[in-house]
């Protein structure tokens, strides 16, 4: 990666410069618009040449770690290889040019892909219906909890507004419950990482709308008593929500539908390898069992004979409605479709198997090297937690310090300090697309860092040393807010 920082694009700007080749050649006056509704002066966008732009953003890109350049074992995020074909095929000119409101007559090819994707995801997850429009995991969660609420409401069961969430849950779970107007009830997990069944029993009741679970959980272990959990919640009148962020771990091995979940979301940008794009876009397709079918968000793709068509509120009058202006992240859906078709049946099974193999191998090697597993008695799922509390206590070198120092060794850091209940934790997810050599090199780096932590701890504490910037002051960032560039700002 590039090690020099770049000036801001605004600093490259000069009045009168511009990528004119990109501008329309005419500049008609627009004098029909009333002056009171018009802008008085042009917006302060940069004035730069096309070369300036290309050079600036190319150089900026080189300041990033990414899967295409680095091992990126960010737990819970499934940073696997994003096949290049998924991108190029989703970006075929006709797909890119298609207007979202173009008639179905001019979208049969596109709709066929989406329809088949719905069917594929049903089979993969064991659900009865799938809607593709949610634009990320969190929006899928929203759709799911909204469906749970709509279900209870439709049955006249108006009091059910509590969502149970294990303490290890991802922040989006409780946040979603709140957004859906629910009350969150957190329950603990036991020392082996399973849900505390007694706490669960105590938590359920006539106000229980449902429970949100990831399985395997964000602790990197499979919830072994999932059938009991399902029974307890169902018996109490609640429904089970499956947070699909960790679906990669069990692909082809066990299906949420078979575990008793009533509604799920899938992160297509995790399990189905659409790119993360430096923060998005993703796609959070939802799947439901038969009870929730009527409530799916619209639009959905239906088939009449050999024609595909949009299903809308007219077809699903009980739908929770529309969550996006059009069809959600359509281009991401095409990428996921291509990916699944390339994997096929056998490939899907292979994903679950090799993601799990890689995680267990990496865990075994790290434990052998003296690192502490958070759940030493358990199998890893596709990810696992190492806790550095001993290192933090004895060497005063924290998980964050390890994380930053890993950057110097050319590895993106694992997820740090999540889940919150494990102290000084690193949540490590290697994914199935990484090779044994890469995992071995990562172990070696971890061992070297621990040795450094013993020999010259300051080196670790002040890492990174070889990146374009040294460790950044987050506290200052939040206190002295500098969120937009102003000509005079000097940080």
């Amino acid at each position: 990666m590039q090690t020099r920082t770049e000036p801001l694009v605004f600093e490259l700007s000069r009045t009168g410069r511009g990528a004119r080749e990109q501008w329309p050649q005419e500049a008609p006056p627009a004098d029909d618009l009333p002056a009171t509704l018009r802008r008085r002066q042009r917006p302060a966008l940069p004035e730069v040449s096309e070369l300036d732009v290309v050079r600036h953003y190319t150089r900026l890109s080189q300041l990033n770690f990414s899967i295409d350049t680095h091992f990126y074992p960010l737990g819970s995020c499934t940073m696997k290889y994003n096949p290049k074909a998924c991108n190029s095929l989703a970006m075929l000119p006709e797909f890119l040019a298609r207007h979202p409101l173009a008639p179905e007559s001019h979208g049969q090819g596109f709709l066929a892909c989406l329809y088949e994707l719905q069917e594929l995801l049903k089979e993969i997850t064991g659900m009865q219906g799938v809607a593709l429009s949610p634009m990320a995991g969190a929006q899928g969660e929203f759709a799911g909890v909204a469906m749970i609420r709509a279900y209870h409401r439709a049955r006249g069961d108006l009091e059910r507004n509590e969502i149970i969430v294990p303490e290890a849950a991802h922040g989006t779970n409780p946040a979603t419950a709140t957004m859906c107007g629910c009350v969150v009830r957190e329950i603990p997990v036991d020392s082996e990482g399973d849900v505390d069944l007694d706490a669960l029993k105590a938590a359920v009741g006539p106000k229980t709308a449902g429970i949100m679970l990831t399985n395997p959980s964000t602790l990197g272990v499979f919830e072994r008593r999932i059938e009991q959990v399902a029974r307890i919640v169902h018996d109490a009148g609640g429904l089970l929500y499956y947070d699909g962020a960790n679906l990669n771990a069990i692909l082809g091995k066990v299906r949420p539908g078979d575990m008793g979940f009533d509604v799920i979301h899938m992160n297509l940008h995790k399990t189905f390898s659409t790119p993360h794009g430096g923060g998005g876009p993703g796609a959070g397709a939802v799947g439901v069992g038969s009870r929730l079918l009527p409530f799916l968000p619209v639009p959905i793709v239906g088939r009449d004979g050999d024609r595909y068509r949009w299903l809308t509120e007219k077809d699903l009058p009980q739908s929770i409605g529309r969550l996006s202006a059009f069809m959600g992240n359509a281009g991401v859906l095409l990428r996921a479709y291509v990916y699944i078709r390339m994997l096929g049946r056998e490939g899907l099974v292979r994903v679950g198997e090799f993601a799990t193999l890689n995680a267990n191998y990496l865990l075994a090697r790290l434990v052998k090297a003296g690192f502490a597993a958070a759940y030493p008695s358990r199998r890893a799922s596709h990810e696992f937690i190492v806790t550095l509390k001993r290192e933090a206590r004895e060497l005063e070198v924290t998980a964050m310090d390890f994380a930053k120092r890993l950057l110097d060794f050319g590895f993106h850091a694992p997820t740090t300090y999540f889940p919150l209940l494990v102290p000084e934790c690193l949540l490590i997810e290697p994914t199935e697309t990484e090779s044994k050599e890469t995992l071995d090199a990562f172990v070696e780096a971890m061992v070297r860092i621990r040795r450094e932590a013993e020999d010259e701890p300051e080196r670790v504490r002040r890492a990174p040393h070889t990146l374009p910037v040294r460790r950044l002051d987050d506290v200052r960032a939040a206190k002295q807010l500098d969120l937009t560039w102003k000509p005079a700002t000097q940080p």
Partner: protein
Amino acid sequence: MAFTPHTREDVAEMLAAIGVESIEQLFDEIPANLRVKSLERIPEALSEMQIARLMTERARQDGRPLCFIGAGAYEHHIPAAVWAITTRGEFYSAYTPYQAEASQGTLQTIYEFQTMISALTGLEVANASLYDGASALAEAMLMAVRANRRSKSQRILVPTTVHPHYRKVAVATTGNQGLILETLPYSSTDGRTPLEALEPYANEDITVLVIQQPNFFGMLEDVDALTDWAHERGALVIAVVNPIALALLKPPGEWGRAGVDIAVGEGQPLGVPLSSGGPYFGFMTARMSHVRQMPGRIVGRTLDLNGNPGFTLTLQAREQHIRRGKATSNICTNQGLLVTAATIYMSLMGPEGLERVAAVSHARTRELVAALTRIQGVRPAFQGPFFHEAVLRLDKPASAVLASLAERGILGGLDLAEHYPELGSAILVCATETKTAGDIEAFASALAEAMKSVRAA
């Protein structure tokens, strides 16, 4: 076929290191009765060559019709540089920039984006995107209700001239928290929201007023009067704006005496392909005083250990991964890559280029309206200033006319029957800078023929 690199020897060594006999054994904590029996409805793997052929055929099946639909998604020219750079692996395959030191490329790009969106809207802070324009409006409503401590009613006035899909998304998103959305009628003569429509609420507790400019019909609302009306009554104002139009139109930060409180919009016109509806991105800007109520990620500039500037995610205490149930939103993954594209697009266009895109798009739409309304049975639905989009009334059934055009390879606008049945047979048409005089001519002559050949209802 799963992009896995493992050789047989690798697997053997790895199993030995773990101390198990088989991969299967790694799944032994899963209750046996739950195990998948088969995935029989999943077809066999396709090689890249095979899927490429399939996708190419499907894409060709959809063709490339000449498109005059706008209605929230606009076909602008996208410079080749935009996606050549955006799809670079370092942008494309990175995660959210949690490790700031290893993500300066994405972080600086977002900081630049925030600055550009602020410049366009005339407001002080912007976030790093929401899912799309519609969800950005819904989030803005939740944010405004939190921010408006003076109002208790959670009542939001939403003109009917706001994009109908946006209104639906707002209902679906905010309904569970008890927000009450009330719709305001439009004037049948000028297609705008008249101040009179607000009169019934003059003495009510209203939390928020939403204004879309240009509105769904392409008509220009009297944004100053509407904004002031709301502010005088203690309501906050949310603007829904088209970022290209902002190159010419008054920025929401200057509407009325004080400017709006929050502005949102669909970022798609800024270098993002139509792509059947997504991925696009929603942008959101607001006054600095509301920043702690803002949903989504925000990037700040700070200093590193050596005192050099650098960028990092900031104000994370608003977000779900820290604040969980009390977060400003559940949003986590956003639309980052599209923000990168839009930032590159805005850099290439600059203030003058963007203004030209807006002005030419508008000029083309005016020419289009002029050409089409010369046809017997076609007339403008509304009088008054419009921008870049317009409603036409037809004296033949719109659906049949549009179907006939589509057969000729022309997508002649959006049928308004579903959302605005009161308009009778009406279509919303749009031309951008991508349309030539020849295209407009082709549309006009196809429409003239269609108007003749289609039977009256």
